[in-house]
């Protein structure tokens, strides 16, 4: 199986969120970046497991600037064979998806894996767009997947539950929790990653359909009102008469 895994770079989950330039851009000062957890823990690791048991290759792709290279190298350290970076700003999902789809069409992959969403822009967009651009079925929020020859059996999250489906390659999926267990890169992987290919290509698409105008932080919370543990009934009273929500 020839698998393409789409990885995006996001701030570490504990990163402080602050903005600069009059709240028009994210302040990356002091921020550690990681591979988006869904892309790394679930999409990439499952792809590697499939390769290890059935052969094939795993390519990772990222749309972004050269500052993403260390993050991409981490995917190589975990075990991807090679990497591609499309050298353009990833600020609009359709643009990102078009660039990935154009590359993937040219190379021909059996499966394209994405994460269910990025933890910074929370889009849940790119995977489905790639599928539509490549005219492939899209299986969103996959929590388990197995493949025998060309037929995959996938469990996905649907509204109010889960379902199991079958689909023939090629297809695109977005990975959710349950697909695999996170892996930590070992020393050998880290060494090997240094010499694995990271090819930089120029964008095939430069149209942007959306634009981020500015950011806002949520209003600060007021003080917490404490209720005595000896008399928790008072809480119910407050929720009814003060907060008026029960």
């Amino acid at each position: 199986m020839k698998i393409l895994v789409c990885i995006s770079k996001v701030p570490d989950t504990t990163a402080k969120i602050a903005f600069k330039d009059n709240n028009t851009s994210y302040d990356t000062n002091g921020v550690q970046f990681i591979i988006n957890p869904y892309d790394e823990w679930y999409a990439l690791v499952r792809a590697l497991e499939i390769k290890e048991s059935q052969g094939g290759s795993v390519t990772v792709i990222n749309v972004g600037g050269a500052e993403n290279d260390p993050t991409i190298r981490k995917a190589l350290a975990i075990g991807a064979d090679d990497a591609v970076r499309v050298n353009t700003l990833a600020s609009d999902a359709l643009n990102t998806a078009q660039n990935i789809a154009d590359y993937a069409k040219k190379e021909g992959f059996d499966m394209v894996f994405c994460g269910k969403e990025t933890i910074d822009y929370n889009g849940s967009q790119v995977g489905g767009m790639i599928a539509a651009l490549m005219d492939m079925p899209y299986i969103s929020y996959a929590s388990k997947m197995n493949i025998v020859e060309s037929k995959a059996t996938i469990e996905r999250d649907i509204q109010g539950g889960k379902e199991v489906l079958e689909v023939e390659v090629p297809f695109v999926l977005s990975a959710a929790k349950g697909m695999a267990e996170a892996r930590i890169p070992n020393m050998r992987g880290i060494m090997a990653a240094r010499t694995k290919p990271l090819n930089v290509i120029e964008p095939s698409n430069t149209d942007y359909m959306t634009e981020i105008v500015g950011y806002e932080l949520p209003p600060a919370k007021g003080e917490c009102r404490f209720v005595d543990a000896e008399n928790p009934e008072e809480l119910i009273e407050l929720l009814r008469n003060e907060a008026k929500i029960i």
Partner: protein
Amino acid sequence: MSIIVYVSTKGGDVLKSSLEAVSYAAQTAETSNQEVVAISVGKVNSMDELGKYGANRLIQVQSSSISSFQPNLIAKAIHEIVKMEGSNLCILSHDLNGKAIAPILSVEMNAGMVTGAVGLPDNSDGFMVRKGVFSGKAFANIKILSENKIVTVMPNSIEKKEFKNTTNVEDVDIELGTPRITVIDQKIASTDVPLPEAEKVVSAGRGLKGPENWQMVEDLAKELGAATACSRPVADMDWRPHHEHVGQTGVAIRPNLYIAIGISGAIQHLAGVNQSKVIVVINTDKEAPFFKSADYGIVGDAFEVVPKLVEAVKRLNA
């Protein structure tokens, strides 16, 4: 012109998240003097509700090829209607249905898209929508620059305004081709409110010590009419099912009431819940970080406090 809104149904009833999308479309239409056209795949029973939240018409797509959830085909059906109506704005819910369909539709329509909107479009200078970013830690205002536009609405984030429309129903047959996905099994939780849509949520963490202690959490949830949730380690240890895991890497929710029992309030947990309207924290440790994000707090032992809360709500409900 019309605004198109996709509605999902369960047993013929329109989902609450879809009704919110209808209301979002109707409130957008109000300021731009447009008609609201709802689309469903298959029959809808609750026509009154659609009218109440502002749909002028309902187009029921009948297609023999969609007997299971087929996002690719549903997107195609919506696009056909969009073309028939000459519309350039389509609204969906940012629930699991919308998340699967909308990206495909965006390619079909060649539309710029904002997902997870928490506010109505601002038309004062172009078309701008507000959404949560950084897993609830901030908001972004995003402009859609293209002619065609798609907005998906974050569940539980829009005030539903009431209209008194009567919804006219039309049936349309559309040939959509053969599905490429074969559904072989489905597990739908029957009675429970789906977590992302729940208005009240009772959640518990590692402070509960083990899965055998969850009865009181379920009792409290039942008495309050709430859904249950948990922190990540609890799901990882299989004390609770994975779909209950909330936070940055789990489900993001924004109920009116979130009660956190024995959860420390790690930043990744908060990222999924900090947009709840009222947060209650119950924890033995008065230094637990969660209290900083709480509206109400009890410093105390869950095993003593929670049963008393259950009794108190029972008395209230009696």
